[in-house]
C-alpha cells in the first residue's frame, strides 16, 4: 500500500537534529531540550498510525513510501524507499517508543550539561539513522542507516571529547565498526554480482529474498559466502566475537547513550539485518551454523567477564554483548522470530538497567564503581525496585520478560540439533543470573561503602527520570506475555505475527513433545535460579565467603579480570604492526622519497638557474661576443643556403 506517511518517521527526528545544531550554534539549549524529545515522540505517534494501517492489511501486506530514485547506473537501480512490514513494525515501535522514554529521561539526566543542545542533536540524528536502517527497502539504503548509526555512536561515545579517553573510545568504536562495514560492503557487492549472473540484478531486499533459492541452486557457494561476510558486518555492529571490543569502552559516553544505542537499538541492527535477510540465510545452512556458534560463544564468553567487573556500566556492557549473543544464536538456528522477540525484551530490560545505573551515577555525582556503593536501596527506592524487576527479567525468572524469549531460543537450539550451542547458552543463563544480581546486591543493599560527603546528598531522581523507569519496568514484566509457550492463551503470538516476514529453515524439525519442552524450561530456570542464589549467598547473605572463593579461584579471576587479554592481543597482532607500517610510510617513504623527489625538482631548477645566471655578467663585451657569435652562425647558414 502506497503512502507518503512513512517519510515523516525519519524526517521528524532529522528536523530535530537540525534544530539541535541550530540551538547549539546560537546557544539556545532550551530549544533543544524541547525539540529533542518532541520529535521522537512525534515520530512515535506517526509509527502508531502507520502500524495501525498496517494491521488493516493482510498478513503479508506492507506500507511503502517511495521517495525518489537514488541511483540509476546501468543494471543497478536503487530507489530511496521506505517499507513497513510486520518485522519492521516491531523494530519501529521499539526505536521510537523506548527512544522517547530515553529522551525524556535525558532531560533530567543532562540537566547540568551546558552542551545539551549538541547532545540532543546527535541523539536525534541517531534515531533518524536507525529508522532509515529498519525502514529501508534495499541494502544500500539500509547501509546508509547502518553507517549513520555508526557515526552517531562515535559522536556520542566521545561526547565529552575533551577527555582523551572518551575520544579514544569513540574512535575504537568507529574503527571496529569499520572493519565490519568493509565486510558488509564486499558481501553486498558479491550479492549484486551474483544476482546479475543468475537472475535479476537488484539490491532490493524483497528481490534478494525472493531470488535466494534461485541463487542457491545456480551458484551454491554464493549464499554461504555472502551470509558470512554480512555476519562479520553484524559482529561489528552488534558487538559479537571478534569485533565486540568497542562496546565496553563505549561506556565512556553519557548513560542515556548507552541505554539507547548500546542496549536497545544500534547493537541490535545486526540481528535485524540477519532476520531481514532470513530467506537468504536459510539457503546457507553452513553459514547459519557459524552464526549460531558465534552467538553461543559470545554469550558465554561475555557473561564470564561480566561477573568480575567493578564498574556497574561495564557489567551491563558485557551483559549486552552476552544477550545479543542469545539473539544471534536464535537467528542462527533458524528461530528468527525468537531472536527478534528477545531483541524486544532486551530493549526493555537492558534500557531499564542502564537508566537505573545512570540514576545511581547521577545521584553519586559520577561514581560508578560498585565497590564505592552499597545500601542505596533505602535512599533511591524507585530506582532500586525497577532495577530489581529488570534483573529478574534478564535472569529469566518465570513470568518476566526474558523467561519466554530466552527459553524460546534455547529450545530452538536444542531441537534443531545444536546441542553444543544450547549448552553454552544454558550455562550463560546461569552466569546472567549471577552477575545481574551481584550488581543489584552490591549497589542497593548491604552496608554503605559510600564516600561520606557523597552519601549525604544521595536522593531519588526527579519524575522525568523515574517515570520512564517505571514504564520500562512494567514492560519488562508484561512484555514477555506476547510469546507464551505450550499454546497457553494466545500462544506464540509474536511468532505468528512475524512469520510472514521471516523464513523457515529447511529441514525444519517438527514440533517437539511437550515433555521435552517442559524439561528444557525447567532446566533453564533452575540454572538461572542457581545463579541468583549464588549471588545472593556471596553478596547478601554471607559476604565472608567472598574471601574463600576468591582465594580458591585466583588464576581464573585474573584471566577474567583482564578480559582474557583480548584487547592486548589485538594491539599486538593488528594495531602495532599497522602503526609501524604507517610510521614507515610516513618517515621512510613520504619524508625521504616523495619529499626528496619534489624538493629535488626544485633543487635542480634552482641549480640550473644558477648556471644560466652567469650569462648575465653585466659586461657589455660578453654580450657583444654573444651577438657576434650569433652573427657567425647566421652567416654560416646563409653561406650554406647560397651554396645550393
Amino acid at each position, binding site marked *: 500500500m502506497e503512502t507518503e506517511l512513512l517519510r515523516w518517521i525519519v524526517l521528524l527526528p532529522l528536523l530535530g537534529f537540525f534544530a539541535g545544531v541550530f540551538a547549539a550554534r546560537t546557544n539556545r539549549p532550551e530549544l533543544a531540550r524541547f525539540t529533542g524529545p518532541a520529535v521522537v515522540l512525534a515520530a512515535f505517534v506517526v509509527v502508531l498510525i502507520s502500524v495501525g494501517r498496517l494491521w488493516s492489511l493482510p498478513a503479508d501486506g506492507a506500507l511503502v513510501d517511495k521517495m525518489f530514485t537514488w541511483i540509476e547506473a546501468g543494471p543497478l537501480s536503487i530507489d530511496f524507499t521506505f517499507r513497513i512490514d510486520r518485522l519492521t513494525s516491531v523494530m519501529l515501535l521499539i526505536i521510537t517508543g523506548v527512544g522517547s522514554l530515553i529522551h525524556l529521561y535525558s532531560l533530567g539526566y543532562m540537566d547540568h550539561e551546558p552542551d545539551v543542545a549538541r547532545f540532543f542533536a546527535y541523539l536525534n540524528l541517531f534515531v533518524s539513522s536507525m529508522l532509515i536502517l529498519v525502514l529501508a527497502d534495499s541494502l544500500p539504503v539500509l547501509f546508509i542507516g547502518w553507517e549513520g548509526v555508526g557515526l552517531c555512536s562515535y559522536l556520542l561515545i566521545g561526547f565529552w571529547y575533551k577527555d582523551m579517553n572518551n575520544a579514544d573510545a569513540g574512535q575504537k568504536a568507529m574503527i571496529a565498526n569499520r572493519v565490519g562495514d568493509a565486510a558488509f560492503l564486499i558481501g553486498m557487492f558479491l550479492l549484486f554480482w551474483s544476482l546479475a549472473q543468475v537472475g535479476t540484478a537488484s539490491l532490493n531486499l524483497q528481490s534478494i529474498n525472493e531470488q535466494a533459492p534461485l541463487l542457491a541452486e545456480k551458484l551454491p557457494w554464493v549464499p554461504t559466502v555472502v551470509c558470512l561476510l554480512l555476519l562479520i558486518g553484524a559482529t561489528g555492529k552488534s558487538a559479537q566475537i571478534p569485533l565486540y571490543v568497542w562496546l565496553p569502552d563505549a561506556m565512556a559516553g553519557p548513560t542515556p547513550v548507552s541505554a539507547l544505542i548500546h542496549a536497545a537499538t544500534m547493537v541490535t541492527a545486526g540481528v535485524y539485518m540477519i532476520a531481514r535477510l532470513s530467506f537468504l540465510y536459510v539457503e546457507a545452512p553452513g553459514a547459519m551454523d557459524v552464526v549460531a556458534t558465534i552467538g553461543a560463544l559470545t554469550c558465554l564468553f561475555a557473561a564470564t567477564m561480566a561477573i568480575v567487573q567493578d564498574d556497574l556500566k561495564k557489567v551491563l556492557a558485557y551483559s549486552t554483548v552476552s544477550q545479543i549473543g542469545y539473539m544471534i544464536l536464535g537467528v542462527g538456528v533458524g528461530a528468527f522470530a525468537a531472536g527478534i522477540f528477545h531483541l524486544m525484551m532486551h530493549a526493555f530490560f537492558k534500557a531499564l538497567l542502564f537508566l537505573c545505573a545512570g540514576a545511581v551515577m547521577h545521584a553519586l555525582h559520577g561514581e560508578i564503581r560498585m565497590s564505592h556503593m552499597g545500601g542505596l536501596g533505602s535512599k533511591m527506592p524507585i530506582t532500586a525496585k525497577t532495577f530489581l524487576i529488570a534483573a529478574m527479567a534478564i535472569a529469566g525468572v518465570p513470568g518476566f520478560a526474558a523467561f519466554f524469549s530466552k527459553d524460546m531460543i534455547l529450545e530452538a537450539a536444542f531441537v534443531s540439533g545444536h546441542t553444543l550451542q544450547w549448552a553454552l547458552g544454558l550455562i550463560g543463563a546461569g552466569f546472567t543470573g549471577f552477575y545481574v544480581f551481584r550488581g543489584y546486591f552490591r549497589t542497593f543493599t548491604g552496608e554503605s561503602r559510600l564516600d561520606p560527603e557523597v552519601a549525604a546528598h544521595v536522593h531519588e531522581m526527579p519524575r522525568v527520570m523515574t517515570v520512564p523507569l517505571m514504564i520500562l519496568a512494567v514492560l519488562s514484566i508484561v512484555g514477555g506475555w506476547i510469546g507464551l509457550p505450550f499454546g497457553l492463551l494466545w500462544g506464540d503470538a509474536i511468532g505468528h505475527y512475524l512469520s510472514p516476514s521471516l523464513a523457515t529453515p529447511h529441514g525444519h524439525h517438527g514440533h517437539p513433545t511437550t515433555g521435552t519442552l517442559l524439561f528444557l524450561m525447567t532446566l533453564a530456570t533452575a540454572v538461572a535460579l542457581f545463579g541468583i542464589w549464588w549471588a545472593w549467598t556471596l553478596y547478601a547473605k554471607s559476604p565472608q565467603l567472598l574471601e574463600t572463593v576468591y582465594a580458591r579461584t585466583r588464576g581464573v579471576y585474573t584471566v577474567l579480570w583482564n578480559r582474557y587479554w583480548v584487547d592486548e592481543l589485538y594491539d599486538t597482532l593488528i594495531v602495532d604492526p599497522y602503526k609501524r607500517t604507517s610510521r614507515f610510510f610516513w618517515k621512510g617513504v613520504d619524508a625521504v622519497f616523495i619529499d626528496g623527489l619534489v624538493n629535488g625538482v626544485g633543487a635542480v631548477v634552482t641549480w640550473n638557474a644558477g648556471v644560466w645566471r652567469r*650569462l648575465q*655578467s*653585466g*659586461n657589455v*663585451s660578453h654580450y657583444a661576443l654573444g651577438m*657576434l657569435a650569433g*652573427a657567425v652562425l647566421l652567416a654560416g647558414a646563409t653561406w650554406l643556403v647560397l651554396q645550393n
Partner: protein
Amino acid sequence: MTEHYLVLAAILFAIGGLGVLIRRNVIVILMSVELMLNAVNVTFVALARQHGSMDGQVIVFFVLTVAAAEVAVGLAIILMNFAQRKTINADEIRLLRG
C-alpha cells in the same frame, strides 16, 4: 668587380667586430662600430651599382644620418658615465649584472 668590393667590406666588418670585442676603451669600441657601419655602407653602394639602382645609395644616406645621431648620443652617455664613475673601461661598467 662587385665581389671584390664585397670581400673588402666583409674584411672591414670583421675587423670592426674584432675591435668591439677586444678593446676596453669604450671610445675605441665606438670607433670600431663606426668601422662596421662603413663596411655595410660599402656593401650597399657596391650592390646598388651592380643592379643600377639608386635605392642602395638612399639607404646609405640614411645610415650616415643615423650614425651621426648615434655617435652624438653615445658620446654624451660616455661622458656622463665618466663624470659618475671616472672610468671608460668597458669591463668596469657592469650595472646590468644578473
